[in-house]
């Protein structure tokens, strides 16, 4: 027993003290080994029915007997004193604290209006609260998505350019066989690239999340948005991940870490992939321009809206079935005083979270990339995709999509590759329909030139990102500027394969079907395999049904 304990003991009152003494003598009698816990403390926790302690005691010999006896004692106290033991002991503790405070501390007048009060008058104001919140979200969204994108392109270019180039030179030196060459360059470097591409975005995301959290604004955002999010069964804090989902679901899934209740986090992560991420936009643009011409914008807008509607319905369904709200979802939230975030803690936050993503979600992505490489290259020496295992798998899957209006193996194949990343749907289609894209003209470069190129690329990315940063302030040009980059050859090929109706069904399917492997990796990392599987299965099922309704419904209406 240490000094502090021996000097200080809070008196819980005769009746409770008697029960504590009874339990302690029972520990002694049964030679009950309480390990590192002091006996008195353990007796109090057992009377309070502390869930964590009950769990531990249950596994010690004689634990069940002791628990049963403590329960009897607690019942008796409740009938005598009219309240649960945990409330009675808390009363005693707070009573003691109040006494100490009254004797030793003179509270200054509380009428003084603090800076925090003044900020809150604006930030949680009846009319201003929501606009301020949306403005903050808009800025964070633009910063995370847009400012990171030049760096993202740079990472991608470095990995697939110089890095891949160096590795092939090394392999050539070692006279490695062609298949090793292909494995390393396409699967390993491609896979690592697929992981690292997220790093710039994640670093920036975590930076701003840490700022919002440490400054104290996050609690105000939750306070302001809670009523709205509750309609769908979510918590006020779920809003930020949902917004980020429009950029990329991977950082959005990680952003759920700011939510305290596990149940709320899981539900948020299940709904986040329904926010149409930026990788799906190229698919909408290509199909929109090929089939809907001037109305392409409306179609794209409808996809975003549909994602939100489906998320709301899914949220309500989950809340009533497998994710019922529990007490941990109760909204008991402290609104701390505003503070200036400490740079060091912000940096640690950024670094630790990003490192964890690379380590955990990275393995999933790398593994999927290897599997995909095998499917595309087996049996050995396949010439075109149709004859590879990939083509065969696609052919087997394809009939599933026939009722949705797109049953060709090419479409099936594109959807399978879309599992790696949704934007690949378009590049697979153009590869299959138009043959291989012209091999990239990469003149052999020296390592020195490569290094200079990397450095220049980074400078360019910084400059571009700085420009974007400036353009955020007036808040202009939110929408896609590069929508005019239409690929007419692909459009013509697509028009042979799809009708406008089946194209619409296809877009609905692409919007809703299985989240990409990186997102599933993130969900698995955060919540375990079964939730990742749940996410994949429910979204694919919803996608199939929705596309079916669109296609068959459209045909009934005579649109097809």
């Amino acid at each position: 027993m240490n000094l502090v304990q021996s000097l200080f003991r809070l008196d819980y009152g005769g009746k409770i003290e008697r029960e504590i003494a009874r339990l302690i003598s029972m520990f002694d009698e049964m030679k009950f080994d309480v390990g590192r816990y002091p006996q008195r403390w353990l007796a109090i926790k057992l009377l309070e029915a502390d869930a964590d302690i009950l769990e531990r005691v249950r596994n010690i010999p004689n634990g069940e007997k002791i628990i049963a006896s403590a329960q009897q004692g607690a019942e008796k106290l409740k009938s005598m004193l009219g309240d649960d033991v945990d409330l009675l002991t808390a009363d005693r503790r707070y009573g003691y604290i109040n006494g100490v405070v009254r004797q030793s501390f003179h509270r200054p007048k509380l009428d003084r209006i603090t800076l925090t009060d003044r900020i809150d008058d604006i930030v949680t104001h009846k009319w201003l609260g929501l606009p301020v919140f949306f403005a903050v979200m808009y800025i964070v969204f633009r910063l995370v998505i847009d400012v990171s994108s030049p760096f993202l392109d740079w990472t991608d270019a470095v990995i697939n350019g110089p890095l891949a180039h160096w590795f092939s030179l090394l392999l050539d030196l070692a006279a490695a066989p062609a298949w090793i060459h292909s494995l390393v360059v396409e699967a390993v470097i491609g896979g690592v690239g697929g992981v690292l591409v997220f790093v710039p975005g994640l670093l920036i995301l975590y930076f701003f999340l840490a700022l919002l959290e440490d400054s104290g604004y996050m609690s105000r955002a939750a306070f302001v948005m809670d009523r709205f999010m509750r309609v769908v069964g979510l918590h006020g804090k779920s809003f930020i991940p949902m917004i980020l989902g429009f950029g990329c679901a991977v950082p959005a899934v990680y952003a759920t870490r700011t939510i305290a209740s596990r149940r709320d986090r899981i539900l948020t992560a299940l709904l986040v992939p329904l926010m149409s991420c930026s990788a799906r936009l190229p698919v909408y643009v290509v199909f929109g321009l090929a089939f809907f011409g001037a109305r392409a914008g409306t179609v794209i807008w409808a996809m975003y809206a549909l994602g939100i509607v489906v998320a709301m319905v899914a949220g309500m369904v989950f809340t009533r079935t497998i994710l019922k709200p529990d007490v941990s979802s109760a909204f008991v939230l402290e609104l701390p005083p505003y503070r200036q975030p400490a740079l060091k803690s912000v940096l640690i936050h950024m670094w630790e979270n990003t490192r964890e993503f690379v380590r955990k979600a990275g393995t999933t992505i790398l593994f999927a990339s290897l599997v995909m490489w095998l499917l595309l290259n087996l049996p050995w020496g396949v010439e075109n995709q149709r004859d590879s295992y990939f083509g065969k798998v696609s052919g087997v899957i394809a009939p599933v999509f026939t009722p949705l209006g797109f049953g060709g193996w090419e479409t099936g194949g594109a959807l399978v590759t879309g599992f790696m990343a949704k934007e690949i749907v378009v590049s697979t289609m153009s590869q299959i329909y138009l043959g291989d894209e012209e091999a990239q003209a990469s003149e052999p470069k020296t390592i020195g030139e490569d290094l200079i190129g990397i450095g220049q690329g980074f400078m360019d990315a910084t400059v571009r990102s700085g420009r974007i940063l400036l353009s955020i302030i007036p808040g202009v040009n939110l929408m896609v500027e590069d929508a005019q980059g239409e690929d007419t050859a692909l459009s013509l090929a697509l028009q042979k394969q799809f009708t406008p109706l089946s194209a619409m069904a296809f877009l609905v399917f692409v919007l809703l079907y299985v989240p990409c492997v990186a997102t599933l990796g993130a969900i698995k990392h955060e919540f375990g395999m079964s939730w990742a599987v749940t996410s994949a299965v429910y979204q694919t099922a919803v996608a199939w049904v929705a596309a079916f309704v669109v296609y068959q419904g459209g045909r009934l209406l005579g649109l097809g």
Partner: protein
Amino acid sequence: MSESTQLHLLKPGQKATITRINGESALRRRFVEMGIVKGETILIERNAPMGDPVEYFIKGYHLALRKEEAAQIEVTLQRGANG
């Protein structure tokens, strides 16, 4: 002492004394952890823009609760206090 009411029925600016805490034991424990206990004075500060949740001032700090949860807390209104 005025008659007993529930915390969520009070308006911003009002001040009350907590008399009783209802609800499931896990929720009550949560309340107790946050300092919501019998005899404590609680000040109603402001409603969120959509009316719910509500911000309170208790034990020298600011706390937000949904009305649904605040309904579990019984209070008596303090009159004449400088609220």
